[in-house]
Structure formats: structure tokens, C-alpha cells
């Protein structure tokens, strides 16, 4: 296990194998939460925390767990972790909990977390799993924030509304209001989430194609 390429893992998590844009997982929390960039950020960070912990734990016990009971074991682990996060936030980060409370429990059913446990942590060491969890979590957060921002901007004409409630008053500068634009309500509603996600997916594919073309173009003279 010495030949783990951390760069590869990070790149996969953030872009190539992005939970939302490449694997199309975790769409339920995605649709429910991304009515604003702030919500997306909060949910993303909470998910990242759970993802890292779950990956580390699963990686630790991977040699003990037998194939027959691995899914119940993972599910119990993840549910426990989420409940602990939920309780802890409620107790000690109460203001943040008021913004995100509804969505924390949703992390249990986030298939991306079980998915990473099944496909990565169970096969790799603790360090690699932690990095993978972090990269995947940040990729997920990025996607949530991006989709939240798009929907918020088109739907309400604001950016990062209420960010100061999540991150503290010093982040109030993030909050932007477009003057004179009332917003298209559809984008805040669930159908808007699907439409926006569709266009973002198309955008990623276009970027990927452009990147592949550039790579091919730069590889050619080297080969010749």
C-alpha cells in the first residue's frame, strides 16, 4: 500500500469522480438543501465531517468485517456518527444547528457516504481513506455551494444570503443582493434544482471535453 497516489485521490474527489457531477449520488440532500449557497456550504461541511470519520472507521475495521454483514455494519456506523454529529451540534453549535438541523439527519441516507465506504475505505488504508473522505467531501461541498449559488442567484437575486449566521458576522461581506431583480421563483423550487443541475452537468462535460482536446493536442507533438 505504499504506492498510493494522494494527488490522484484528491483529483478524483474534487473533479474526476465528483460525488454529484460524476457519480450522480446524493441527489436527495442536494435537491433539498441547495436553495442558497449558505445552506449548501453548511450541509457540505457537515457531510464532509461524517464522510471523513466514516471512511477512517471503516478502514480501521476493514479486516475484521466479513462480507456478509458489512452493509449493516457500515450503516450502523454511519448512523451512529450522524447522530453524534447531530447531538453535538445541537448542544454546542446551536445557532448553526438552527440553520442546518433539518438536514443533518438526512446525511444518514446520503448514499455517497456508504458508497465511499464500500468502494474505497474497505480496500484502502486509514490515511488514504481519510484523504479520500476529505476530497470527496470537499468535492460534494463544492457542488452543493455551486448549485446553491446558481439557484439562489437566479431564483432570489441574492448570493450567500444569511452567510453571517453560519460563518459568523465577519463573513457578512459575502452577502450580495442584486438590485432590481426579483428572481425567478421556479429556480428555488425543486424543478429549478433539476434544471440547474442538468446545465451544470452539461457544463462539466464541455469542460472535460475541452480538457481532453487540449491534452490530445499537447500530447501529439511530444509523440511526434
Amino acid at each position: 500500500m505504499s504506492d498510493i497516489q494522494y494527488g490522484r485521490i484528491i483529483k478524483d474527489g474534487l473533479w474526476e469522480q465528483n460525488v454529484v457531477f460524476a457519480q450522480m449520488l446524493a441527489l436527495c440532500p442536494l435537491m433539498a438543501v441547495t436553495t442558497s449557497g449558505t445552506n449548501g456550504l453548511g450541509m457540505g461541511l457537515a457531510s464532509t465531517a461524517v464522510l471523513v470519520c466514516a471512511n477512517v472507521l471503516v478502514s480501521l475495521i476493514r479486516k475484521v468485517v466479513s462480507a456478509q454483514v458489512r452493509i449493516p455494519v457500515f450503516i450502523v456506523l454511519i448512523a451512529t456518527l450522524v447522530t453524534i454529529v447531530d447531538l453535538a451540534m445541537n448542544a454546542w453549535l446551536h445557532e448553526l444547528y438552527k440553520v442546518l438541523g433539518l438536514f443533518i439527519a438526512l446525511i444518514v441516507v446520503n448514499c455517497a457516504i456508504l458508497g465511499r465506504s464500500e468502494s474505497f475505505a474497505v480496500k484502502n488504508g486509514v490515511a488514504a481513506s481519510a484523504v479520500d473522505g476529505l476530497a470527496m467531501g470537499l468535492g460534494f461541498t463544492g457542488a452543493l455551494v455551486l448549485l446553491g449559488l446558481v439557484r439562489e442567484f437566479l431564483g432570489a437575486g441574492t448570493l450567500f444570503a444569511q452567510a453571517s449566521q453560519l460563518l459568523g458576522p465577519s463573513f457578512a461581506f459575502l452577502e450580495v443582493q442584486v438590485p432590481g431583480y426579483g428572481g425567478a421563483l421556479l429556480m428555488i423550487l425543486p424543478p429549478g434544482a433539476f434544471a440547474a443541475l442538468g446545465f451544470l452537468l452539461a457544463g462539466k462535460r464541455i469542460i472535460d471535453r475541452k480538457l481532453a482536446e487540449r491534452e490530445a493536442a499537447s500530447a501529439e507533438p511530444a509523440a511526434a
Partner: protein
Amino acid sequence: MTPATLTAQTVASPHAHGGNSVSRTMFRVQLALLPATLYGFWLYGWPAFFLWALTILSCVAFEVLSLKLMGTPRVKATLFDGSAVLTGWLLAMTLPPWAPWWVAVVGGFIAIVIGKQVFGGLGQNVFNPAMVARVALLVSFPLPLTLWVAPLPMSTLPTPDFVSSLRIFLTSLPVPDAMTSATLLGHAKTELARGIDLATALHAGPDLSWIGMRAGSFGESAAILILCGGLYLLITRVITWHAPLAVLAGVAIPAAIAHAVDPGRFLSAEAHLLSGALMLGAFFIATDYVTSPNTTTGQIIFGLGIGLLTWVIRSFGGYPEGVAFAVLLMNAMTPVIDRFCKPRILGRDRKGKPLDIPENA
């Protein structure tokens, strides 16, 4: 001659064609829409004309843009099939006559890009593009989309001239209160919500009119002219009677029953039939080839579904009008209807098993 050079251009039979074409069909539908459209211009003046023209223009522009972006080689052929023009036209017919310019542009974008091209272009869309745009606009911008202007020949104010019409269209300034008016359905819904009996409410409310002397969308007002267009389409065989009749029946039957039971709570069948987008929906939207079932049985089910849902939404839903929502819901059902309503294959029973061979034939 070698076989290879010969096989290059193989064409199967038939070697004759009936002469029907996509563009001819689209042209006929547009022709059928013309009387109601012209009448709409007369009712609502220049702003309605600007809205109509810009909606069509933006639909065509977005069509060209999408085709260019997708790198389709047949931009011209696809453009001249007239489908984008028709989508824009139908959308414009359902908009409030004095809606501002950006409604037309955003509507064109939603109809063509989101409603049609994203699904793969002509023939591939699941939902009727014009109705997708109509619903998306209504949900997104409820304010300008529910601002109805009274037909000008009925209003006390003079008709705006060309320049002031342009100003109304481009600046989206609020329309003076004296010119606005509620639609019959909207009025009934508001009064009912206040707990006022319909019999009393309709005394003061807008009248029913076969010739569009009431507030409403720019192209929907004159039920009689829409009906004429529909009959023209029936006679030229562009559409069949199944879907339109089913839509009208689907609204009229429950409406008549409910009205007979409780006239204070439910509008009459006539009021339903002559209101909102029902006539337009029955003859021009429910008959959309792409998004309706293929078989006549399927079309009847589809039409009844639209009618019934329209009545349910109008009577119990949050919005006063429900044709567009009903159409979209039934569009989503179309593949299911198509799956279960197949024509019987000659020589087979409905399940596809060969017929029994009679013993003593």
C-alpha cells in the same frame, strides 16, 4: 459493374410518397391560429402584437442558437420546419396580452432550450414546450403573469397608440388600475376564498363571452375563433376529434355534475368551457403530436385526463387556471398510456397472442 458500387445507394420501397410534410402540418396549424390571433390584436392593441412578435422571434433565435451549439448539420432544414415558430405562437397566445418584453424572451428560452432542445430537439420532448414555458413563467413570475388587461374596446380608456404601446411593452411599468380586470376564473376563486357565494359573486364579476369580450390571455379569448381553427384542422386531417372532444368532455361532465349539486360552490360547465385556455388547449395543445399518445384510445384517455385535471385544479387547486398544469401532468403520462393502449395487431388478440383458429372453418 461491381456489387459494391451498386449497393451504395440502396433504397427500400415504397417509391411514392403521399406528399405530407412536417412544414405543411406546421403551416396549417399556424393558419388555424390566425383568426384568433388577428382578433387578439384588435382586442388588445399594439402591445399584444409586440408580445406575439417577440415571443416568436425569441423562440426562433433560441432554436438557431441551440442548433449551432449542438453542431447539428441541418440547421436550416430544422429551422424551416416551422416548429419553433409554432411553439412561440402558441406560447404567445397563452400570455397576458400586455406582458412585458422580458417575459417573451425568458419564455422563448424556457420553451425552446429547456422544453425542447434539452430533450433532443423536435420529436424528442416529453412535455409540450409552450406549456412548459407557460407554467415556468407563471411559477417564476406570478405577478406579471396574472395581470390581465380588459379588452380595449370594452375599456373606458382610449387605445394606446404605437409609441405608448412600445413604452408599455418595453418598460414594464404597472398598467393603470382602471385597465386591469380579473378573469372569470380568478374572480370566482378570490370570491370563493372570501367565503362569498358564487351566485352573488358572479353578479358583479366579468361576463362570459363567446367572442372574447372579457379579460384573458391574448389568444384565448375568442372561443368561437379557436373553435373555427380547430374545425379547420379536423377537416384537413391535421388532428383527429378524439383528444379535443375528450378534453372538453373531461371538463364539462364533472363541472355540470358539481354545478348541479352545489351551484354556489362550483362554476357551470359553460363557464368552464369558455374560460381560460380550455379551447386552445383542447384543439391546439392536447393535439400536439409529439407529446400526446399515438392511438385513438390513448388520445381519448389523455384528453379526458387533461379535462378532469383541469377541472380539479380550477375547482380545488391554488391557481385559478389549470389547463397548462393538466397538460404537463398528462404529458408525463403519455408514455404509460402508449404502453398500455396499443392497436390490436391484425390476426392477434389484444395481448399479442395469435387468434385461435376456428375448428370448423
